[in-house]
């Protein structure tokens, strides 16, 4: 492979550009549980969106008590749920009740349970089938739908109807109103923590953004933690970050797909970070042949068409990297390190 007067001699090479999936079919979600939480489903259960999968508790402590007598003597295995017993008052001998909780271990005829307070419901973010329930660890749920993967999500899981803002600029607080209550909005390039807090305050269920600065992410998480520390539970809210921390617009294939599901019920989930939707009746957007996107570097976010492989090229700071020639939307052709490119499949 060589370069002849700056022109490439190899027209292939697109397979050396990292592929990124536009849609993941039937993803498996992992919903975390902690010791003391109580799963309400079992393996194989078919659930609908909104079904309560588990009861989670914010304040969990260990309670120990002597092994119950009589018919209750059989010890549940570690991770089993102990339903608790009522206290009894008898003339001869009263008996204290035992709290419900998750059995941790049994030492010298004393049971140790994880017992929680301040219950929160963990609802299924979408229709699906429970693949695995592991008490104290989590629930795996295979979704009967599809997902648009992002790089990270915070908060959640959360569910609402999708509203896409037409412009790809930053979302300003003035654009928010109570009409968006219950919605998950697609806001474009970037959003700040104050706007996210406003979104939550207006009753929105989530935000999809191309990027979220790490400072804004931390500020938002701190705000979330303060709210969660309060006695009353808060409504679910989540932020899905499609690309990263530095500014770049939403990729055109993703934007086209989001426009196609505008108005539908969707959900943001955290593990894996995705926007879940029902693909029934949705046309998968066609991506132009050879469409590539500059993922990193000074031109991050720009899109163009793959022209050819350039082999090894010397870039700024004398770094030698394998490069490709890309024709940008303004017609200009630029050499871009292959590692800075991505394509959607």
């Amino acid at each position, binding site marked *: 492979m060589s370069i002849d007067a700056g022109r490439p001699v190899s027209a292939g*090479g697109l397979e050396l550009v990292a592929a990124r999936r536009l849609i993941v079919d039937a993803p498996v979600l992992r919903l975390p549980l902690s010791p003391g939480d109580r799963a309400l489903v079992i393996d194989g259960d078919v659930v609908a969106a909104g079904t309560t999968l588990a009861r989670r508790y914010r304040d969990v402590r260990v309670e120990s008590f002597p092994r119950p007598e009589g018919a209750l003597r059989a010890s549940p295995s570690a991770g089993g749920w102990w339903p608790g017993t009522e206290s009894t008052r008898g003339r001869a001998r009263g008996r204290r009740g035992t709290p419900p909780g998750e059995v941790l271990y049994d030492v010298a005829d004393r049971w140790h349970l994880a017992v929680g307070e301040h219950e929160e419901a963990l609802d299924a973010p979408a229709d699906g089938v429970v693949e695995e329930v592991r008490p104290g660890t989590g629930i795996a749920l295979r979704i009967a739908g599809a997902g648009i993967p992002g790089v990270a999500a915070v908060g959640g899981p959360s569910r609402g109807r999708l509203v896409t803002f037409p412009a790809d600029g930053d979302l300003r607080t003035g654009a928010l109103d109570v009409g968006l209550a219950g919605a998950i909005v697609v806001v474009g390039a970037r959003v700040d923590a104050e706007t996210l807090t406003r979104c939550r305050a207006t009753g929105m269920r989530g935000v999809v953004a191309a990027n979220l600065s790490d400072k804004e992410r931390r500020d938002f998480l701190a705000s979330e933690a303060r709210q969660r520390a309060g006695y009353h539970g808060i409504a679910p809210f989540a932020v899905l970050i499609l690309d990263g921390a530095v500014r770049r617009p939403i990729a055109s294939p993703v934007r086209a797909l989001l426009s196609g599901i505008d108005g539908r019920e969707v959900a943001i989930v955290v593990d894996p970070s995705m926007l879940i939707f029902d693909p029934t009746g949705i046309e998968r957007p066609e991506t132009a042949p050879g469409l590539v996107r500059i993922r*990193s570097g000074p031109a991050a976010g720009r899109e163009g068409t793959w022209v050819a492989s350039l082999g090894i090229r010397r870039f700024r700071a004398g770094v030698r990297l394998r490069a490709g020639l890309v024709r940008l939307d303004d017609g200009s052709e630029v050499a871009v390190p292959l590692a800075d490119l991505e394509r959607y499949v």
Partner: protein
Amino acid sequence: MSSPADVRIVVEDGTATVAVSILSRIEGRWRLVASEAAPAAIGVDPIVAELVRAVRAADPELARDLPPPSQAADLPRIVSRGRLAPGAAILAASERQADVLAAAARTAGLVVRAPHSAPDLLGAIRAALRPDVAVVVAGSGPRPTSDERGIADELVAALTSIAARRTDVSFVVAGPLAARIAAPDVRARTTVVDDPAGPEGGHALREALLEVGLPADDTRRGIANAARELALLLELRIEVVEVGHAAGMRLLAWQAGEGATSTDARVAVLAEGALVPPDPPDELVDAIAAWSPAVLDRVRLRDRLVEAYETPWGDLDGEGATLTVAAARAAVERMVAATPDISALPAADLLVACGGAWADAPAPAVALALVDVARRPGAMQLGFDHARLLGPLGLVADADERRALIAGAIDDIVLPLGTAIVPRGIRASRGTIGHLSLSVDDSISAYIELEAGGVHLVDLPPGATGIARLAVRDAVDLGARGREFEIPVAGGLGGLLVDLRDVPMRLPSRPDRRREALAAWQRPLWPDADR
């Protein structure tokens, strides 16, 4: 190359990038023919095909027996794999013991999930049930106090409970607590370490954790094996600093045993030695900024570091390149600080840089980065595992084949960066403090006046050897104190580095002056850095 049996595709399949090389036996000796690194998402086969295509285009004679690119995936492979650092849960009978166990786990490549000691066993169980936890480390002191004895039964019950719920975790148990474990299924999954708080106990515990935590095909296990082979083959003390996406590694290997026929090594793997750990704290961001010659405010720098964690293969030219090497410097600095036991051992003769973090930096810049952070008084050669071969080759199961591969390709595996001379006890003064003359083939090839506080670079190409004669006005420490030294040196892409910045390095405290100093030292090593 005579047949495909004389070709090996060597793959270091990392968490972020994959490095692929073609090794071929040429005239009875294994040689590196081609190598390439790319984002892991691309997969190995397209890279193998591209390499074969490139070899066929560049040297048809050499590639005569290579299959067509479309069939290159069938060539025999040697593969090592990288993984995200697994989690560890700590169950200890006391706070002090929890600290001992957690410290060992951190240097064994494990991410400690909230160390907990009794009575907060709930926190320990919660940590142990996290899906990313692969190892549970438990223990009590060698002579348990009455409090520790009282809690021992609960610890064992908690361990048994975790074992029942997590059939996929291993246990490492230290001290007399191990003797209390009665359940056969738990005992079968338990590695016992006698006294982790003893003089060599922390090291023994770390080794046990490394053995349990690193899978058989893990790249870092291979690097440790290969470094031992290098120590034996070169008869040198070898230090390796590896900086990767998921973790970093520092090790020292040396010849040992009767007649120096075997080797010994001290190995540490640190999740905090990753190029950029996930969710970097402010101190880490500041430490990277302190090594960067570019001005970046903390918010912008943090965003770029978050991106570097997500896509470490991107943004590798221009400012991104210097930022990556600054992050690699900071990673080595963290590893050196976390492994005083390795620093306390006699210094290495050859320091080798490994890992994807260095992959695209100019070789001389890598040499200076190593000297900046792995500072020891004395002279040492510098090398670079540029094709990331050490990991996979160290995993070849057959010892004879492994040795033949490493011995044959040794000149290709470790790219010579040069020799660094780093004196300690340099007095800050203006003007010259002495001079250095370099003799190659019995003639003086270079003579330089030495100035305190700077780095002098002398051309000495790869393959060349010579004698450096150093004469200074005031005595310095170069392993031994003196004013005149004769040091055998070997060449490399960075040549001979004479580093008069003292040990530890003196850097201006004002950020702007510090950046100026870093830029002045680094500018000659980064061609076109200003473009």
